[in-house]
């Protein structure tokens, strides 16, 4: 069994190396049959890595502790579903997942574009092969999941906090996102290498980028929700390096998704797009490196961790190679047109890009700050929440505002008159809403009021766009209103899908602003029968309940929640679980969702005292549920934009028929 796994990995490595070397040779010498064999090698590598993954999954399912990986990450008692999730619970398995997903994406991209963009693929395949070879090399020579040992009686088990349904979905989502960013990168570099620097590589990878970006976004939201309901400190994002590692490539990819539209429409920003796609890719590798190497958690073991060194080397090679390539191709990348006015659609996209990249780079600065300060000053310093919040406000709020402005400004040059007409209603709505918020006492947080005013502005400008578009379609023919609306969206999926995604970002902003700027926190020690008040609600502690299960003891505080008067609205059970085998305690928070106003009442049994009292921490988090709602809207918007569109395909086919004929 382990031999089969090892053989499959060696085969995958060989095939990917073949795809790299032979693919490059074929592209260089323009040998069509050789190029086809390199493509087939890439597809065969998917089969080989799938076999390796199947071997590992089988070993995990069978609790085969002769595999060191299985023994290190599972135990006999571990239920099958968690034993299987241990596939990505450790470093070697995660690398294998990277390889599998990469080969999957690569094969799919080859199969779907091989007919229409053969010339583009010629150099794309060796780039994909090169990235894949790196991971296959790591799996074969540095960090193999198929190391065997004499089977111990039982395995080390999976940390209790990972024995959670989120474990099954959150890491794979992130990996689908991280790895998916390789596709636009490979096509971009392929375009540079083959000197086909028109926007075809962007059109060919648009859906792949969008899909990867959606996965990465959803993966992060799932992680945030996991932290919120399970980890139990009342928050969902802590600017932890590992969380930032996923946020950075997402921000770079967001910038990329926007700037490619400028290149498609106006032929500008070609160098910038290459830089962005390389940045997004490097950051995704960097994210994997941060997550897996433990550099930031234990800075001093940096030099000793073999994996970290390899990854750092790979990032350096990719960065250097990309830089050289872009510089060498600069003459080809010169823009056909230039920016005509600072008030135009192009310009707002440019501002959006600068802000996104600035936010991304300041986060990167914060993440590597401990390493840099150690190098420069000899003393490790860290930056924390205030640093990140400062930049989130400085760059995030203008970004939010731009989201309402950008899509409504005319291409090339906008006049003040049309601007006034376009923005009159959103502006009025925002001012009215801002005044209303101040009157309602939201002025306690200035940032909060600004964020909400911007949110209303953006939402009303999005709504206005839908109304205008629907009205225009209705005027074209005498369709009914719903029909006009659906045909509007169906005919411009990318545009209106984008608006829906924008709306989801607004929901996210409302949720974040509400739950952070306006949250109420109360902590108090309560004896039985005593009470405390949080946000107008009275919490009465009634005593403890205990329950024993085979592997843990559950202690729950019984807390009655009264709505101001004598009316009890809920009974909540915050508490702790004590796990016997692992000798660990876990906080089990109690959350009451209020679906009417989107707020949560969040109770934490902070400390259970021997005299029968409890230290209860209560948080009232307004509008926090909009964050999770945003996730669904986000997926919906992305799906609209991703949905195949026969009309668009035809348009593109006609547009590039000339280019193909020349190729």
């Amino acid at each position, binding site marked *: 069994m382990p031999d089969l796994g090892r053989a499959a990995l060696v085969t995958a490595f060989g095939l990917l190396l073949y795809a790299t070397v032979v693919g490059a040779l074929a592209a260089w010498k323009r040998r069509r049959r050789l190029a086809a064999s390199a493509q087939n090698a890439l597809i065969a590598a998917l089969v080989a890595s799938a076999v390796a993954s199947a071997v590992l999954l089988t070993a995990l399912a069978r609790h085969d502790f002769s595999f060191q990986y299985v023994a290190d990450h599972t135990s006999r008692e571990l239920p099958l579903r968690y034993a299987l999730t241990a596939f990505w619970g450790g470093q070697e398995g995660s690398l294998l997942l990277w390889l599998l997903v990469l080969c999957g994406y690569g094969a799919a991209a080859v199969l779907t574009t091989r007919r229409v963009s053969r010339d583009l693929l010629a150099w794309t395949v060796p780039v994909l092969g090169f990235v894949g070879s790196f991971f296959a090399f790591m799996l074969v020579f540095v960090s193999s999941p198929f190391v065997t040992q004499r089977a111990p009686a039982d395995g080390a088990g999976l940390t209790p906090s990972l024995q959670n349904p989120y474990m099954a979905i959150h890491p794979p989502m992130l990996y689908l996102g991280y790895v998916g960013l390789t596709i636009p990168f490979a096509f971009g570099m392929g375009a540079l290498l083959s000197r086909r620097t028109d926007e075809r590589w962007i059109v060919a990878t648009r859906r792949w980028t969008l899909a990867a970006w959606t996965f990465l976004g959803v993966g992060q939201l799932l992680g945030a929700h996991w932290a919120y309901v399970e980890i139990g400190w009342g928050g969902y994002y802590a600017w932890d390096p590992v969380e930032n590692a996923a946020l950075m490539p997402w921000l770079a990819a967001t910038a990329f998704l926007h700037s490619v539209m400028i290149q498609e429409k106006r032929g500008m920003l070609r160098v910038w797009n290459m830089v962005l796609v390389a940045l997004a890719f490097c950051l995704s590798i960097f994210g994997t490196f941060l997550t897996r190497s433990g550099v930031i958690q234990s800075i001093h073991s940096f030099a000793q961790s073999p994996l970290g060194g390899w990854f750092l080397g790979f990032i350096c090679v990719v960065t250097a190679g990309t830089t050289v390539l872009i510089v060498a191709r600069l003459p080809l990348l010169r823009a056909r047109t230039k920016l005509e006015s600072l008030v135009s659609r192009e310009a707002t996209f440019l501002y959006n890009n600068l802000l996104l990249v600035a936010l991304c780079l300041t986060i990167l600065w914060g993440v590597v700050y401990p390493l840099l300060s150690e190098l420069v000053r000899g003393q490790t310093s860290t930056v924390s929440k205030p640093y990140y919040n400062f930049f989130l406000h400085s760059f995030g709020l203008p970004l939010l505002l731009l989201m309402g402005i950008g899509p409504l400004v005319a291409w090339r040059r906008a006049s003040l008159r049309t601007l006034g007409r376009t923005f009159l209603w959103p502006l009025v709505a925002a001012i009215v809403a801002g005044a209303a918020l101040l009157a309602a006492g939201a002025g306690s947080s200035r940032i909060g009021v600004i964020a909400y005013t911007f949110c209303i502005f953006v939402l009303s400008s999005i709504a206005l766009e839908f109304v205008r578009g629907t009205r225009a379609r209705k005027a074209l023919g005498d369709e009914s209103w719903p029909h006009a609306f659906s045909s509007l969206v169906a005919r411009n999926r990318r545009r209106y899908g984008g608006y829906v995604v924008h709306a989801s970002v607004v929901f996210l902003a409302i949720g974040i602003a509400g739950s952070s700027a306006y949250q109420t926190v109360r902590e108090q020690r309560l004896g039985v029968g005593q009470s405390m008040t949080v946000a107008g609600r009275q919490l009465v502690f009634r005593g403890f309940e205990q329950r024993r299960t085979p592997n843990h003891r559950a202690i729950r505080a019984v807390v009655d929640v009264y709505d101001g008067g004598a009316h009890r609205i809920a009974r909540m059970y915050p508490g702790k679980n004590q796990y016997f085998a692992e000798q660990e305690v876990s906080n089990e928070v109690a959350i009451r969702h209020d679906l009417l106003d989107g707020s949560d009442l969040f109770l934490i049994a*902070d400390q259970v005292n021997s005299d029968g009292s409890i230290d209860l921490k209560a948080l009232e988090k307004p509008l926090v549920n909009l964050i999770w709602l945003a996730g669904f809207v986000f997926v919906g918007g992305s799906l609209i934009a991703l949905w195949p569109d026969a009309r668009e395909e035809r348009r593109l086919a006609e547009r590039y028929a000339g280019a193909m004929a020349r190729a």
Partner: protein
Amino acid sequence: MPRNGSPARLVVALSVAAVLAIFLLYTSIAGGTPSLRPSTIAGHTGQVSLAGRVVGHPTGDAHGAGLRFTLRDVKGRATVPVLYRGTVPDLFKSGRDIVVDGRLRSGTFVAVPGSLITKCPSKYAPKHSSN
């Protein structure tokens, strides 16, 4: 190269300048918090972040007079006593690696309430912060 006076260049230059300005403003106000170990903390009186391993038996009431424990270098022998109030993460116990903010006052590290963070026992687990 594009001609001089291209608005795109102006935008890029202005935004780079703006970003730098904000950055300088920020770093001059706040800057980072030094991360120290028990062996390197001596002499620091400002607020720092202290990382180490909990040794011995923590005593006291984190929600009352304060929890007292000793922190030792993860790889070393130097120790420092810590006084902490506020939420204690689930994973906190003797032998665990933690990070806590605070300042040294006459030989005892007085922690910022609620700043205690335990590091994961497994480096593959997600965060367990308590801020």
